[in-house]
């Protein structure tokens, strides 16, 4: 059996992701194929997904997928060329190197030292690896799914959901600068339970790098309870309501706002929710940095070393994520920017890349307390199909899903039909009455820790037929 086939078998059967030593070895092999001098830059990545999907209480998909990739960049006499492959045998790697060299010869030649390397960075230590996640086998996922489905099935409800454990590695071993290797895991579980007659629906979900942090039975119970409680909703008039937003609903709005926390939109394009206005005297655009943008009880930031907010500690350009407070007690204190922009506008050697992960400050009120203090309002489980209508005010639209209840005189009185809404997270965060304890929410792309909150005058514009 050839060495190539041996490699394939090892990858498929015994190894789901490339270890650091293997990434280094691949990098060295790629470099050994380079001809004609110049520089060779190699990035090696791999990923694995173990997933299980079910619908109508029956598993509809279960599988394991994995892949890897090598990105080769050759720089010959100042001209760069790049090629990618996901085959790790020598023939394929050498073919990729030759392709990168051909591309380099067609490219524009820059002075050899024009693209000077960035200075060495310090990278944070982050909690992103969990053996519990990585070790969950396909049979174990099946068992877990059974435990998630059973409560709904016993109650003669229909459940659908998705359970995924995954892992990924990224590596970059440049000639100069620090060697980068990160291995990360992610577990996510989300499920919907519906009444077979289509009159009620409940949802619950959570994601974390660590499967042990996801209490699957609790999610199953929660989704079922919400479904049962949301059956036979009644229609109430659209309009402005006091709302109690559960943490997932808050994240569905605020998560988009966090991704909009960038310098370039306001400063370069005079646009976005954080553009303050034109400074004609200095001939530049002012952002809202330094201005109060939300309620003073709100702080939003990201600490990569926060165990609940772990992310791969560097971005696509190898730039480190740093501890940052975007909003401090209501005041906008930092906006993200890539290093290039930071260098050009402030001569700062390091920008603030925005991973989208965040922790939002909260309060001490429980959801029950919020309900008790509400004369008339709505309890919202989550939002769906949320889209931005106006990027400058961050006005969004979407609709409520999977559990919406009317609160009257301090008590939940009935399930109500879903609403379309038109609202901005900036308006909501300026209309806060109470805040609860921040908790992790379902956010597989970037972890988030968000509190529930009670806010005034949330705008529901029309009834929605969605359940």
């Amino acid at each position, binding site marked *: 059996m050839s060495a*190539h086939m041996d490699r394939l078998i090892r990858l498929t059967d015994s190894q789901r992701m490339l270890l650091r030593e293997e990434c280094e070895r691949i990098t060295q092999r790629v470099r050994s194929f380079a001809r004609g001098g110049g520089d060779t830059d190699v990035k090696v990545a791999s990923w694995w997904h173990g997933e299980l999907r079910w619908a109508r209480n029956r598993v509809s998909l279960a599988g394991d997928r994995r*892949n890897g990739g090598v990105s080769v960049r050759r720089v010959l006499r100042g001209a760069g060329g790049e090629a990618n*492959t*996901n*085959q790790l045998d020598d*023939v394929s790697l050498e073919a990729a190197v030759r392709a990168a060299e051909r591309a380099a010869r067609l490219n524009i030649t820059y002075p050899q030292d024009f693209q000077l390397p960035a200075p060495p960075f310090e990278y944070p230590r982050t909690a992103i690896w969990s053996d519990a996640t990585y070790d969950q086998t396909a049979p174990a996922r099946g068992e877990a799914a059974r435990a998630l489905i059973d409560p709904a099935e016993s109650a003669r409800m229909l459940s659908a959901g998705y359970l995924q454990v995954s892992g990924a590695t*990224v590596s970059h071993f440049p000639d100069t600068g620090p060697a980068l290797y990160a291995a990360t895991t992610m577990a996510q579980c989300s499920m919907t339970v519906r009444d077979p007659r289509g009159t009620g629906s409940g949802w619950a979900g959570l994601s974390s790098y660590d499967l042990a942090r996801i209490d699957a039975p609790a999610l199953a119970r929660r989704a079922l309870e919400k479904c049962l409680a949301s059956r036979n909703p009644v229609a109430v008039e659209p309009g402005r309501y006091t709302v109690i937003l559960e943490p997932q609903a808050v994240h569905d709005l605020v998560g988009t706002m966090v991704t909009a926390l960038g310098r370039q939109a306001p400063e370069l394009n005079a646009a976005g929710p954080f553009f303050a206005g034109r400074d004609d005297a200095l001939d*530049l655009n*002012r952002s809202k940095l330094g201005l109060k943008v939300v309620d003073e009880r709100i702080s939003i930031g990201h600490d990569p070393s926060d165990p609940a907010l772990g992310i791969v500690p560097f971005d696509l350009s190898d730039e480190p994520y740093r501890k940052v407070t975007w909003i401090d007690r209501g005041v906008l204190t930092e906006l993200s920017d890539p*290093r290039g922009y930071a260098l050009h506008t402030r001569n700062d050697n390091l920008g603030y890349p925005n991973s989208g992960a965040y922790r939002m400050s909260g309060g001490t009120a429980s959801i029950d307390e919020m309900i008790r203090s509400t004369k008339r309002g709505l309890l919202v489980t989550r939002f769906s199909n949320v889209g931005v209508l106006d990027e400058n005010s961050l006005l969004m639209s979407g609709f409520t899903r999977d559990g919406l209840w009317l609160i009257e005189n301090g008590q939940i009185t009935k399930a109500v039909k879903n609403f379309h809404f038109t609202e901005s997270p900036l308006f909501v965060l300026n209309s806060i009455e109470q805040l609860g304890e921040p908790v992790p929410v379902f956010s597989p792309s970037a972890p988030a820790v968000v509190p529930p909150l009670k806010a005034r005058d949330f705008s529901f514009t029309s009834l929605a037929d969605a359940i």
Partner: protein
Amino acid sequence: MHRWIGLCAIGVGLFAPVTQAQTRFEWPADTADVTRYTTAEECLAASERAKQALESWGPVWADTLQLTPERATAPLPAPLVETARRCGARFAAATAPVIDFAPLMELFLLAGRDADAATIVRRRLAAIPATALRERAAVLDSALNGYVTVPFGNPGLTNAQPVRLEAAESLLVDRARVPDTLLGVQDRIRPVWMLLRAARRAGDTARAERVAKRFLELGARLSSAERRTEWGEISRLLTYFALSMQHERALLDSLRHGTAGYVALRRGDWSKATGERGVAFRMPVGQPAATIEGDFWFGAGTPDSGIARSSKGKVALVVFVEHGCIDPSMNCWPAYASLRRLAARFPALAITLVARTRGYFSAMAPPPPEQEANALRQWWQEFHHLPGALAVTSTTFFRLDAPDRRRVDRPTANETHYSFGRTFGADPGMALLVDRNGIVIEVGRLGGGAYDFPDVEEHLAQLIDILLSRPASVS
């Protein structure tokens, strides 16, 4: 930068046989198979791919971009024409759907089927109701654009199709029947300016003068309210250019006899175009060029070359160069090629590049001014081989309060001296030609855009030639 994305996006294929890997990175064939294409858009796309295939193998930025009249009439590459011809053969101008007028016209022109292009234009115009004058103007503009515009974009980097000036000019007659009141300023001036620019670039001076006259008539009809709009401002500047083009020979003759007469003519044109007189006069022609200051000087003969220390005695070209153009995405390279060609053509011309520090260079950690200045020298003089002396001013600046912290640069002395009011700020790429007595003769933007003076390089070359050949006794 997005290589991680690329890696993660690699499709499933990890287990493909080894033999596939050996052919996976072969270049695809660049012969267009047009048999399956059925629409004009598909044929145009195929033609563009043929052109891109040619360009990718050719020299990318060699100084072969001659700004000569021949360039505008050079034939398109044969594979491109052949692709358009074969693919377009299925479309007959007399019967093809008139709704496809725009892509068909372009396809016919690429294939050299000018009569068919005219037919499809005629059919499209015939389909417009007599009262739909705006629609008529729009179609005429599209047709005119097709006749004078280089296909697929950048005229600086590719061969141009031969522009069809006669066909384009014939459309202007019909276009003039659309009342001014139906169209905005931009819509009125743009097609005429595009034709004027194309005629000028093609070296068709008689036609350029004719179209310039038409443009001036158009400008004269602007109302006072229209003149105050953004496009009114632009039209005034273009009017000035048109005036200059209309009597360019007279201008050049006057310069041969002395600077004073030439300056008077240019100032007269400026006054006619803008209405500016007296202290509000913003045209720098005729004004004394200030001595260039620099904290760091690089290049042959510095700091005494050109007007570095003294503006007397040499014909000089002062060019402001800027950091934006060390970013390869900013295409200043045609301007650099212009500069190199001028230097090669006129060795006696004293060229001074004027730059400032910004506190950064490429990905380099914030460098001290001397290191940044040296990097700029490396970029412009070693890599781009720009001629002349390079003066770099160490820029003074302040910072906005935290948390903004942005750096705000103060104007350098050079920028202040060469601002001449709002219209001619010391922008990147601005070139000023100065005579032996230190008087500004012309200002323009090398590698200029659609609304700059067309063919600045050739225009400057004519002026430089006169200034260098003028006896020293003439002033």
